[in-house]
């Protein structure tokens, strides 16, 4: 955050939206374009980029890595699932993990990612770390795409408060030629193509200084054949996991079953309710009758159609209300959740009271409304 603050502080040039937001938006746009399933953010700091990315519905695995555990821990709980995620589990599965460790070390937990982002990371690396960095990220992790952003030192002349570097922890700041030279060499070495761009446009007339933040997008040239690379030697875990959150998802049988049971019983209750109130008529209250209008609710229209179809009609016999599973299955929500009728039967088996032949949900209405 310190750096973000720094750049906004300059008086001559002010970016709108702030530059850090532009960098995050750049990553988000990239995610929208390539739809990666597994994304890792190296140097994730206070997790704000990860927090933005957790809302991207294509991502199923999110990982963050930082050399400083405390800065991650401070706000890591923003990555936890929300109560609503439990109430309405989503279709996709999502696991968020935070690791404490260095980008100069290899750890098997970083294998198999589609996108690795290194936003304002490399300029914090000591020379020895920077040397190992390409081998770890491009050689070992070898994701399909790598994004690297770093300050463009040519722009510093426009930032009057910057003395040497934009942040005291920066070990170096490269000009465009330096960054591109390093990037091209790295790309060549590990079989990637690289394209250069950036965020933070220079003022008119000064275009040649380039973007304030320079960005390289690396795309792996060949699809992964590197089983051999990974299985060369069994790796030992060197990172320490500091946080892990598994989001509730309908892919998890437990949540799916719960959702289906809830939906089945609720749907059946509505049908029962309508069935019973039809039987009772509205005669007891003229005020209600006069104001009662055919509802515009699509739900009731839908119900009207379903009930007309043969063999699917719910009925009351004695103290029992029977609501055929086929009727319930024809409701869009139930249908979408289960996919097939067999799956519906399987999921609710033993959890919902059914008629003796198992074809209908059954309610006993004998004891209802007793003390109302």
């Amino acid at each position: 955050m310190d750096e973000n603050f720094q750049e906004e502080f300059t008086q001559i040039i002010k970016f709108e939206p702030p530059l850090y937001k532009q960098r995050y938006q750049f990553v988000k746009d990239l995610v929208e374009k390539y739809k990666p399933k597994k994304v890792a953010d190296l140097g994730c700091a206070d997790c704000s980029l990860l927090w933005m990315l957790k809302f991207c519905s294509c991502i199923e695995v999110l990982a963050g890595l930082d050399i400083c555990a405390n800065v991650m821990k401070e706000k890591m709980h923003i990555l936890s699932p929300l109560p609503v995620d439990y109430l309405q589990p989503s279709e996709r599965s999502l696991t968020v993990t935070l690791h404490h460790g260095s980008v100069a070390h290899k750890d098997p937990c970083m294998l198999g990612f589609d996108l690795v982002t290194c936003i304002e990371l490399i300029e914090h690396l000591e020379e020895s770390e920077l040397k190992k960095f390409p081998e770890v990220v491009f050689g070992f992790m070898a994701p399909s795409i790598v994004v690297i952003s770093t300050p463009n030192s040519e722009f510093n002349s426009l930032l009057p408060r910057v003395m040497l570097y934009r942040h005291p922890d920066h070990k170096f700041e490269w000009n465009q030629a330096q960054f591109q030279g390093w990037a091209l060499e790295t790309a060549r070495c590990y079989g990637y193509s690289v394209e250069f761009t950036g965020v933070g446009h220079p003022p008119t007339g000064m275009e040649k200084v380039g973007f304030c933040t320079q960005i390289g997008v690396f795309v792996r040239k060949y699809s992964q054949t590197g089983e051999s690379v990974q299985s060369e030697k069994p790796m030992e875990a060197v990172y320490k996991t500091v946080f892990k959150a598994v989001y509730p998802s309908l892919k998890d049988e437990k949540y799916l079953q719960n959702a289906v049971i809830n939906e089945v019983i609720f749907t059946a209750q509505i049908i029962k309710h309508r069935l019973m109130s039809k039987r009772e008529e509205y005669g007891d209250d003229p005020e209600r009758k006069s104001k009662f209008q055919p509802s515009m609710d699509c739900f009731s229209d839908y119900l009207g159609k379903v009930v007309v179809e043969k063999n699917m009609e719910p009925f009351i016999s004695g103290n029992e209300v029977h609501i055929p599973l086929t009727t319930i299955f024809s409701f869009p929500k139930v249908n979408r959740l289960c996919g097939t009728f067999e799956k519906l039967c399987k999921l609710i088996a033993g959890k919902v009271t059914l008629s003796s032949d198992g074809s209908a949900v059954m309610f006993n209405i004998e004891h209802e409304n007793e003390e109302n």
Partner: protein
Amino acid sequence: SQVTELFSRTRNGEDVKITVTLTNELPPTSPTCLQFYNIIFRRLLKMLNLQQIGRNYYNPSDPVSIPNHRLMVWLGFTSSILQYEENIMLCADVSHKVLRGETVLDTMHSLHSQVGEERFRDTCAKELIGLIVLTKYNNRTYRIDDIDWDNSPKSTFRKSDGSEMSFVEYYRKQYNIEISDWMQPVLISQMKRKRGNIQGSVALIPELCSLTGLTDKMRNDFNMMKDLAIHTRLPPEQRQRELGRLLNYIQKDDNVQKELRNWGLSFDYKSVSFTGRVVQGEKIFQSGTMFDYNPQFADWTKETRGVPLIRSVPMDSWLLIYTRRNYDVANTLLQSLFKVTPSMGIHMNRPSMIEVDDRTEAYLRVLQQRVTPDVNIVFCILSSSRKDKYDAIKKYLCTDCPIPSQCVLACTLSKPQTIMTVATKIALQMNCKMGGELWSVEIPLKQVMIVGIDCYHDTVSGKQSIAGFVASLNQTVTRWFSRCVVQSRGQELVDGIKTCLQTALRNWSKWNKCLPSRIFVYRDGVGDGQLNTLVNYEVPQFLDCLKSIGTDYSPRLTVIVVKKRVGARFFAEIGGGLKNPPPGTVVDTVVTRPEWYDFFIVSQTVKNGCVAPTHYNVVYDTSQLKPDHVQRLTYKLCHMYYNWSGIIRVPAPCQYAHKLAFLVGQSIHREPNLMLSDRLYYL
């Protein structure tokens, strides 16, 4: 004093020297430290992966779902660390959060299909305003204060940088959320004072909000509450077990233990155990007879049967109004009343039986034509629980034409197996409404006036607050003077209460031919945050009021703040197990506060779950009575609520004040006619 010097360098390369001087040490019992302990404890709960909803933390991994009503219940904990009599202690309790598996938009859809277009907006306002919602995208809770039907997700709002953006666009950009229904209205939530006194409102999209808690409608749904109670009403043993689990988690979790060690804090993992007292049961007096009740049930419904009332008011002239459908019900009721009233000593004539159409106007017309000043009471049998009809009847008979009234739903009277019980209860209730007295307990203090005050805050319009004020009129505290104050927003309730106290004193002196020498005020409806205002502002106003009566008049005054919503739960160790403490249990050591004169009384009994103690805080006292006597008097007053032949949770004047404020706030909306003020017409 001790000085530490530190050196650092800013981003711009300037060297900075930081000097830290020890000026003061916070004792572990200082308010700042206590606040700090609470923060740490809440952090521990977070570390245990509990989810914060509102103020408390809940366990999301093991929810109980009640699909019949689309409800989900999360088990969680309330926690507060405070300085108690001798020690700093953690007061923890099991808490249940009711969550709803549907969005506000889902609820709006089903309301629409239930009530139709015409009443849709009103119904939404009634059902939704005041509820707490969770959003899909952050971990905050919001209260719905209003529904803006003129706006939709397509509407734009001004962002902090000044640019305009539509909600649809905002949620898409910020959270990748696509709003599917672009026609829905927008919910408005008023922000409480946050950073820098900024007051504003937040707009929320119904589709993105999940409901929490229960609506009034759900609370009235007997079946739903029954289903819920199974999960939420934990008996003492089970409650203790759940709490034990929390402590166990804390004890077993390495990270949590490390955190505690880092702060140098530790816990005793046992709950505190101490000795309480059980005051003796009261004898109930009812015209010449006296009886005890079974302390286990704290109820004398059986014992009172067939015993004449202290004062019965004859029903010489009364009206019975019903619709054609309910003709039979009306007759059954009448027969039953004729059977039960003689043994109570109530003389009853045949009423004027009046048949009406089931419309509000029809009821009102009959009332206007047939209610004359000599009518004792008006009885209306209603065929549905439609609030507008009830409100109209009550409003007319409480303000324009002050006559006691009794409204009963036809379905309550339609079950042959319960009709006698129901008729008995109705007869007693009507008798109280006409100024009758049922039973009494011994009140050893002489010349005492007991006052009860409670408030009702209108959640729907948010405009009115109503204070109910009730004061005893006689030595046996069986007759009450009742008034209320209707206050619009921004006014202070206490000005009105002062007037009430003055008239109450005048009436007391009329009844007793002198002024009371002792006054006890039981003040309910005070939030923790308002306690100081009460002590610094309201109590001096009471004193002023007493002074204004006469220079030589200085009665002894005791002001007691009554609090029903307390976190503390007491379990009695009986026969090796944990049970609910018996009614009359008084606790005034260990878990009370050193800075207060306070105590707990468990007065009522419960069938399921844990009994909740009531907290009493004596904020002003010149009575010179021993605490024991104040406690005994308080407990005695819990026996005097005439709508329940048993002991209740609060002193009767508080419950009367509550009933009055509720009726006025819900149905009447202005001060009832003072002609009624010497009767419990609002029961």
